[in-house]
C-alpha cells in the first residue's frame, strides 16, 4: 500500500512480522508434508527462496512491460503461473548443469515448487501493493527466507513431538497444526517492531 517503504524494512518484515506462512497461510501443503525431515525441509526451503526471488522480479517486469501496456490484466493469473513454471523449468536445467550436487540434494522439490501457493501469492501481493522492483526483490527474498526459517523450525520441533505421548486422534496432522499455531503466536510477538501492510 505504501510505495515509499524502505526495501530493507520490507525484507525484515516479510521474514518475521508478516511471515508468508504463519500470517498469510501460503505454502501450507508442502509445509506440512515435507517438514517430517530436517534435511528435506532445508532443501525445499532453499529451493523456495531461490525461485521466489527470481519469479517475483520477473513477474514484476512482466507486469510492467507486458501486462499493463497490452491491457492483459484479465490474463494476469495465467501469465504469472506460466512465468513461474518456466522459471522453475529453466532453473532446473541450469542447476543440473552448473551445480549437480545441489541438483541432487534438491531432487523432487524443485519441480514441486510450481504449485507452491506461496510463490504465486508473493507475486500477487507484490502487484496488489504496488511495490517497486527493488522492493519486490527484497519482499520475495525475505518471504522466501521466512518460509525457510519456519519450515526448518517446524521440522526440528516435530522430531521431538514425535516422541511425546499424544492422544491417538491428535497424532500426526493434528498436533502439527497446533504446533504451527503456537509458532504463529510466537511470530506475532515481533509485530510491534515493524509493520507492513
Amino acid at each position, binding site marked *: 500500500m505504501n510505495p515509499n517503504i524502505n526495501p530493507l524494512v520490507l525484507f525484515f518484515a516479510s521474514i518475521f512480522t508478516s511471515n508468508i506462512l*504463519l*500470517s*498469510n*497461510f*501460503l*505454502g*501450507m*501443503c508442502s509445509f*506440512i*508434508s515435507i517438514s517430517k525431515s530436517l534435511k528435506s525441509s532445508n532443501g525445499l526451503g532453499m529451493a523456495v527462496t531461490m525461485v521466489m526471488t527470481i519469479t517475483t522480479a520477473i513477474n514484476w517486469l512482466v507486469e510492467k512491460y507486458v501486462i499493463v501496456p497490452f491491457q492483459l490484466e*484479465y*490474463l*494476469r*493469473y*495465467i501469465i*504469472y*503461473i506460466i512465468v513461474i*513454471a518456466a522459471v522453475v523449468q529453466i532453473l532446473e536445467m541450469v542447476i543440473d548443469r552448473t551445480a549437480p550436487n545441489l541438483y541432487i540434494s534438491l531432487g523432487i522439490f524443485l519441480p514441486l515448487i*510450481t*504449485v*507452491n*501457493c*506461496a*510463490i*504465486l*501469492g508473493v507475486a*500477487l*501481493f507484490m502487484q*496488489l501493493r504496488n511495490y517497486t522492483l527493488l522492493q519486490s526483490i527484497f519482499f520475495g527474498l525475505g518471504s522466501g527466507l521466512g518460509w525457510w526459517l519456519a519450515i526448518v523450525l517446524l521440522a526440528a520441533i516435530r522430531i521431538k513431538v514425535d516422541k511425546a505421548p499424544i*492422544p*491417538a*486422534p*491428535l497424532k500426526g*496432522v*493434528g*498436533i502439527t*497444526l*497446533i504446533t*504451527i*499455531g*503456537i509458532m*504463529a*503466536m510466537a511470530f*506475532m510477538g515481533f509485530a510491534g517492531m515493524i509493520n507492513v501492510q
Partner: protein
Amino acid sequence: MGKFKEVFLKNTWYENPVFVLVLGICSTLAVTNNLKNTFIMTIGVMLVTGFSNLTVSLLKNLIPSKVRMITQVLIISFYVIIVDIILKAYLPDVSKALGPYVGLIITNCIIMGRAEAFAQSNPPLISFWDGITSGFGYMIVLVTIAFFRELLGFGTIFGYKVMPGNFVNWTIMIMPPSAFFMLALFIWIVKGFKKEGAK
C-alpha cells in the same frame, strides 16, 4: 446412481480432502474469520473443481501426457479467472476483501489432485460430480471453522449480532493462529469419531 453416492460419501467423509488428506488448506484459511467471505470463496473453489474436472475429463484423450500438468493448470486458471471476473462484477466488496486469495485458488492442491487422480481416468459426468463433492467436503470444514471464528471473534454470524451485549470478543479468534487451532481441533474431533465408528 450407486457410484454417485459412493463418490459423494468418499469425498465428504471417508477421504475428505481437508481432514483426511490435508490438502488445499492454504488459500482459504486466511479468510475463515468471516462467514460470508468463506462461503463465497468455497463456492468458488467448488465450481472451479467441478468444471475443471469436467474439462480435463472431456479432453483427456486429446492431451499428450507430457504436457498434461501444464494443460491442467491452464484449464484451472481459466475457470479461476471466470470466478474472479464474476466476483468483481457482482460482489465487488467481497472481491476486495478476498484480495489475492481468489487468484490463489489456482494453486489449491485439491483441484490439481482431483484432476490428476480422478478426471484423468474417468468419464465426464462422474468427474464433474467428483469435483463438486470434493469442493463440498472442503466447504463443510471451512464453513464450520469460519462459524466459530466469527461467532467468538466478532460475536456475529453473517454480520448479525447474536452474542449478548456483555460478551467480550475473543480477539485471538480473528488472528492467524486460531485458524490453525480450530483446524487441529476439528481434525481431532473427527478422527476421534471415526475411530469409534471403526470399532
